[in-house]
């Protein structure tokens, strides 16, 4: 690889890290008590991440479950071809990562203000 090419890739990586940083600082202003599940642009479920419970709902492809424990949540027992949503694992308010399942058209994130 040439020097110029390494520089281009490094600049790109720095921009991506900056994007992550900006996104983190933005997510500090979010309402941290409500997590919402959006299906087809409609909120189908809202839950409090501080209450331990398992929520069930149905997406476009099939059944899904969300396990909430100790202020964190994850997707379990989902019906979808790729299982990317459950591979994301435990997500908390601080890690601020939305969980997206495309086959089910479901989007789980902290509620924006």
């Amino acid at each position: 690889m040439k020097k110029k090419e390494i520089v281009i890739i490094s600049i790109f990586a720095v921009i991506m890290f900056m994007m992550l940083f900006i996104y983190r600082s933005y997510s500090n202003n979010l309402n941290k008590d409500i997590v919402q599940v959006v299906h087809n642009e409609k909120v189908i479920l809202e839950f409090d991440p501080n209450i331990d419970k398992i929520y069930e709902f149905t997406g476009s492809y099939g059944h899904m479950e969300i396990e909430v424990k100790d202020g964190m949540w994850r997707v379990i027992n989902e019906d979808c071809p790729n299982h990317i949503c459950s591979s994301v694992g435990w997500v908390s308010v601080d890690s601020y990562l939305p969980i997206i399942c495309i086959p089910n058209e479901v989007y789980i994130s902290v509620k924006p203000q």
Partner: protein
Amino acid sequence: MRMSETKKFVYVTMLSAIAISLNIFESIFIGNIFPFGIRIGLANIIALVTIVKFGVKDMLVVNIMRVFIGNLLRGLIFGSTFWIALGGVILSSFALIIGQKLKASLIFISVISSIMHSFGQVLVVIFFYKQPGMIAIMPYLLLGAIPMGIVTGIVAKEALRLMNKKI
């Protein structure tokens, strides 16, 4: 390299078959090792080999065949996975063509096409599946694309070295 039409046709067909099998192998056996759906992109090795050995037109054939037949064999054709894969492949093919025209090094082309592949997938998710939250995951995906691009680039380079000896 000079070879007859038929010979070239056979080679392109075989490369497509390898790309399709790698694609299916990866999605079944090494699908979810990395978080956020980051994948190595083994089939991209074949796209790199094809564009260097046979040129742009055959690379497009291999890439399109891989998306269509790969998804057809997995029973996912015209589902969400198919459209996302198609968006990724179109952008990564463009990146390969531009990189080849600019005579960049193979690993650089590989990294750029890997980044563009992820970016194309993210664009499809944001605009066609209306999931703007994907923007939050995009930096992770694009950062993950860099090491994966380097890995596929190195493998493609090695594969080309071996191929030049045999063919």
